[in-house]
């Protein structure tokens, strides 16, 4: 059993995994959007959450973080309920969930990632400022620190969101479609970030929309379509059978992706 500590000094025990979900059910007005999800993610994995539109991928993340109420089930972060473990969890929401015309700079947004440790009434100080600048640097955004967020491109905005999550200095990260609509430079920056996080032993769970790049960027996959279809390492889980069960009607397109994957696997 390894005991790590994050830089905020919170002791992290790996006796129970970073994420344990049991029987999670989420409903919207009596219609279940997620049913009976049982999921256990091991530490240090880069996990892609994949499924068709409306499969409940974003819903899963929001329910885990308590942002939407769940009808049944429990979520454990390193063995404890989420509410007591917030400091260990980082979150990157969908870029479209925010009004980017809000009057604030990139640095200001990243500093919001440090608010969780500040407490009521206290103002962010030099330490938060330096932490935020370090996070921006890791995403290659130092030059844009004082830029208004409405002057940033989509990829730059995404990197600001990622820097904000980095500033949270968490142990497990949830990201909601970070690769959507970003340029090649940003895509590379995100992949580099994922690898760096994995090197530090952190766990990252990412809602991903692109079946082609998923096996390349991630080592675990969670296949979701209102229920959990399958979860595990790409090799054993990303099968044509599982994809058929996940994508149903869009089966043919999914099979094509699988064949692509198989071909690449052979050439690797």
């Amino acid at each position: 059993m390894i005991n790590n500590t994050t830089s905020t000094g919170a002791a992290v025990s790996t006796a129970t995994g970073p994420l344990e979900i049991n029987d999670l059910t989420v409903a919207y007005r009596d219609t279940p959007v997620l049913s009976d999800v049982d999921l256990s993610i091991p530490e240090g994995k880069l996990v892609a959450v994949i499924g068709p539109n409306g499969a409940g991928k974003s819903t899963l993340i929001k329910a885990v973080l308590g942002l939407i109420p769940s009808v049944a089930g429990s979520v454990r972060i390193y063995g404890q309920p989420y509410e007591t473990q917030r400091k260990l969890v980082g979150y990157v929401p969908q870029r479209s969930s925010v009004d980017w015309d809000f009057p604030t700079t990139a640095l200001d947004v990243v500093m919001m990632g440090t608010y969780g440790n500040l407490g009521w009434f206290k103002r962010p100080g030099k330490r938060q400022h330096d932490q935020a600048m370090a996070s921006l640097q890791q995403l290659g955004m130092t030059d844009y620190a004082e830029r208004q967020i409405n002057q940033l491109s989509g990829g730059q905005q995404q990197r600001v969101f990622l820097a904000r999550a980095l500033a949270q200095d968490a142990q497990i990260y949830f990201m909601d479609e970070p690769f959507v609509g970003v340029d090649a430079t940003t895509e590379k920056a995100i992949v580099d970030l994922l690898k760096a996080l994995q090197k530090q032993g952190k766990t990252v769970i990412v809602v991903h929309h692109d079946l082609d790049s998923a096996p390349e960027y991630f080592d675990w996959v969670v296949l979701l379509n209102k229920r959990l279809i399958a979860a595990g390492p790409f090799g054993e889980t990303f099968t044509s059978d599982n994809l058929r069960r996940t994508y149903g009607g869009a089966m043919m397109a999914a099979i094509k992706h699988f064949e692509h994957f198989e071909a690449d696997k052979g050439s690797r």
Partner: protein
Amino acid sequence: MLELLSDYTLRNVALGSALLGIVSGVLGCFAVLRRQGLLGDALAHAALPGICIAYLLTGSKAPIVLLLGAAASGWLGTLAILQIVKQTRIKEDAALGIVLSVFFATGIVLLTFIARTGHASQAGLDKFLFGQAAALIEEHVITMAILGGLALLVVALLYKEFKALAFDAAFAQSIGLNTNLLSVLLTSLIVVAVVIGLQTVGVVLMAAMLVGPAVAARQWTNRLSVMIGLSALFGALSGVSGAFISISQKNIPTGPMIILSLTLIVLISLFFAPARGLVWEWLQRRRARGNMRVSADLRV
């Protein structure tokens, strides 16, 4: 006319309208950034029956009594909107329209009833429709100062929390900020801002006092702190100028005069602000087109 007005009245009017301008300017920024501008409108209209009922119950027209009544029914209106959206399939804009109209209509009926029964001191309640700065007495200004001061203090203390809430409520909740509590608190402060302004601007036009200064201020800056400061300034300017014009011309109600001053500020900001102003954008487009024409000519 002006010589007839005592220093006392002028002082109260100036202080009162500046106060209301500052408070609605500051809180209006958060309302606008959270897309809750219309909520301010519903709040103001919903306050009318509360004022009437407070008077009917206590027989008193003391500012604190009427303002408490206004706040209570304003808050009730907000809760009604929330419940309608939650329990029925009606969307927020329709719920707003329904609650605003029902509450306001009830208020008008109550006002008429009060007028008909001919209570000796009933004159003055209908001034809450469009505001009457001349009716401001020291007691009003003191109440406004205390309530307004408290509201501004809370905003100063919780600035970073309100900013996080307004920008990205989901993320704020995920890092442990109690977004429900903060949201309720912010709405309550907006109720305070509305209630402070009701006597001077009136129920019908109070929404503009929340939205106008913030919209104008946004044109001139990209920083939230500067936006709030400018919004307070614009609110105070329009409040004071509108109030003074209104009391120097006997029959003009104050609310419309303040809003007209505010409209001038908003129009100037919309057209002439650098970077975001319409004139500036038009000039930029012309310059760009000119450059294209020049390079096209050179190619020939």
